């Protein structure tokens, strides 16, 4: 009998503990709501608190993360966290409210409905150049836009057609929701996106690095900050080197403006972080350190339709 009592007490103890944890969790829930709305009221005070979450383009996630680390040094009660699951994901997530910031290589208008876009505020934080990359064994080092068009629409299938050795071209594409793919296709094809999928559709820039590093005769595309000479080669486009200086005046044609979107009624911490992204602390040093181009350096701008005009 004693034994039963004992185990019953243990049993109740476990449940008591469970209830306590659940209770604490709920208390956390209740108090979290006023905390986030309260921080808006207490704007201007130095003790900024809140959670900033972001998702979206993997191409400039490194930049956001580096900036977030600096920002959190200065604001101990702010937590910034996020991942890079592609521009489409980021824009959808910020519109759905599952994250507070959506990072994107493309304008929100190209991915979301007009009424969803109306609720979003754009922040252009950097410009990134993107270029075609090929396996180390490929001898071609310069491709024209027309040749790229042929390769990425499946019309050119052999390296010998573009001046290389006689070998089949293996095209590694990015997933359809990817901003890098959208940017690349917009620059190469203009309005008419090709109906060609290539031999694999990879999720992230890192996946492309790995796959192209271990595959012969392959071609793909990456942003400049993901270039890695030890694993693959970046090739020239129309004879122009893929470097930041050539992007300033659009002589290297494949580039995108990096956008960070938040909702109009975003919380204080999110707004403060976005302001920080545009401030000199980030624009002055961090952007170039991470391999991106400050917006201020650009001599041209690109609009949502992809038209490039002088500033």
């Amino acid at each position, binding site marked *: 009998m004693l*034994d*039963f009592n004992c*185990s*019953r007490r243990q*049993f109740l103890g476990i*449940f008591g503990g*469970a209830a306590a*944890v*659940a209770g*604490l*969790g709920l*208390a*956390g*829930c209740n*108090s*979290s709501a006023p*905390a986030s709305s309260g921080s808006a009221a207490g704007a201007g005070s130095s003790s900024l*608190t*809140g*959670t900033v*979450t972001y*998702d979206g383009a*993997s191409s400039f*996630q*490194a930049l956001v*993360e580096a900036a*977030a*680390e600096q920002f*959190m040094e200065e604001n101990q*009660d*702010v*937590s*910034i*966290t*996020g*991942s*890079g*699951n592609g521009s489409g994901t980021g824009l959808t997530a910020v519109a*759905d*409210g*599952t*994250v507070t910031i959506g990072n994107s290589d493309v304008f929100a208008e190209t991915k979301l409905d007009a009424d969803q876009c109306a609720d979003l505020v754009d922040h252009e934080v950097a410009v990134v150049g993107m270029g075609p990359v090929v396996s180390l064994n490929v001898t071609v080092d310069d491709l024209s836009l027309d040749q790229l068009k042929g390769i990425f629409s499946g019309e050119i299938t052999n390296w010998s057609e573009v001046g290389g050795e006689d070998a089949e071209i293996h095209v590694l594409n990015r997933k359809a929701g990817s901003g890098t793919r959208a940017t690349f296709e917009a620059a190469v094809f203009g309005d008419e996106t090709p109906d060609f999928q290539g031999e694999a559709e*990879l*999720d*992230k820039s*890192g*996946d492309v*690095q*790995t*796959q192209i*590093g271990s595959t012969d005769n392959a071609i793909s595309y990456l942003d400049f900050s993901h270039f*890695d000479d030890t*694993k693959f080669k970046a090739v020239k486009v129309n004879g122009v080197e893929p470097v930041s200086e050539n992007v300033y005046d659009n002589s290297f044609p494949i580039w995108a403006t990096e956008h960070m979107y938040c909702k109009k009624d975003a919380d204080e911490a999110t707004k403060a972080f976005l302001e920080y992204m545009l401030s000199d602390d980030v624009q002055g040093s961090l952007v170039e350190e991470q391999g991106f181009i400050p917006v201020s350096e650009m001599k041209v701008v690109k609009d949502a339709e992809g038209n490039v005009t002088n500033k």
Partner: protein
Amino acid sequence: MANATAQAQDARIRRSMRNDKIATGILTVIVAIVMLIVVAMVAYILFQGVGQLFQPGFLTEASRSNGTEGGIAYQLFDSFYLLVLTLVISVPISLFGAVFLVEYAPDGPVTKVASTAIETLSSLPSIVVGMFGFLMFSVNFGWGYSLISGAIALTMFNIPILTRVITQALEDVPASQRDACLAMGLTRWETTLHVLIPAAMPAIVTGIVLSAGRVFGEAAALLFTSGMSSPARLNFLSLNFASPTCAWNIFRPGESLAVHIYKIYGEGSPEAQHIVWGAAAVLMICVLLFNVLSRIAGKALARRMTAE
């Protein structure tokens, strides 16, 4: 004539015997291969990853650069925290649910509907559970990517497993014990709480620990519910449950080890690969521990119950 038949008979017997030997040989080879594959897999993972465990900071530092640098401390913590949250929700529900099905519900439409529901849940692909959790908890309830969304998705995944184990355990309690209690004037509820559940405890604990192993490695249901990132900084001492940096805040996003592996498996840098294999080794070791633990716990409890 008779001689020919006898010869044919003889040949058939010999053929049968030979086939018997061949079949036994083939089966032995199959079993040997299977065992070799299992051992090789486990050994390969441990071989690739164990070295990383002794890297300073791997188990104690937060990850950096989208997980491709640094350690896996927060992922490890999030995995265990998610597991605890999941068990806190799913154990009582499964326990009482199983009690209802075994002790209260007559064999009728109620039991049938309920057990069909549980069976359906058990066969659903985890990605569907994840999609449902994403829409229901992350979007509709406005919880965003949060540990609690993930824990509830995992609960849905865990309940069928637990319910089946506990139902089995309760059914295995001898009917005589049940009858004795009822004869003494105890209600069914008292019988259940004081006699049946303690008697079934070893099997229940074994089942819970085993299911914990499954939950611990689950990733597909978490991609859209608890998210694919862990906060850059967690404060384990904070008891302010609303604070985003409080490790115990169930409304913060979190990333389990399995999700972390999925996130960075394709990253090419050598450091990222070391982290992936290290994380896989940690995951394997934890699952092995759960496996061993469940056996030990079940045996120890059983010994205690029978000794008295």
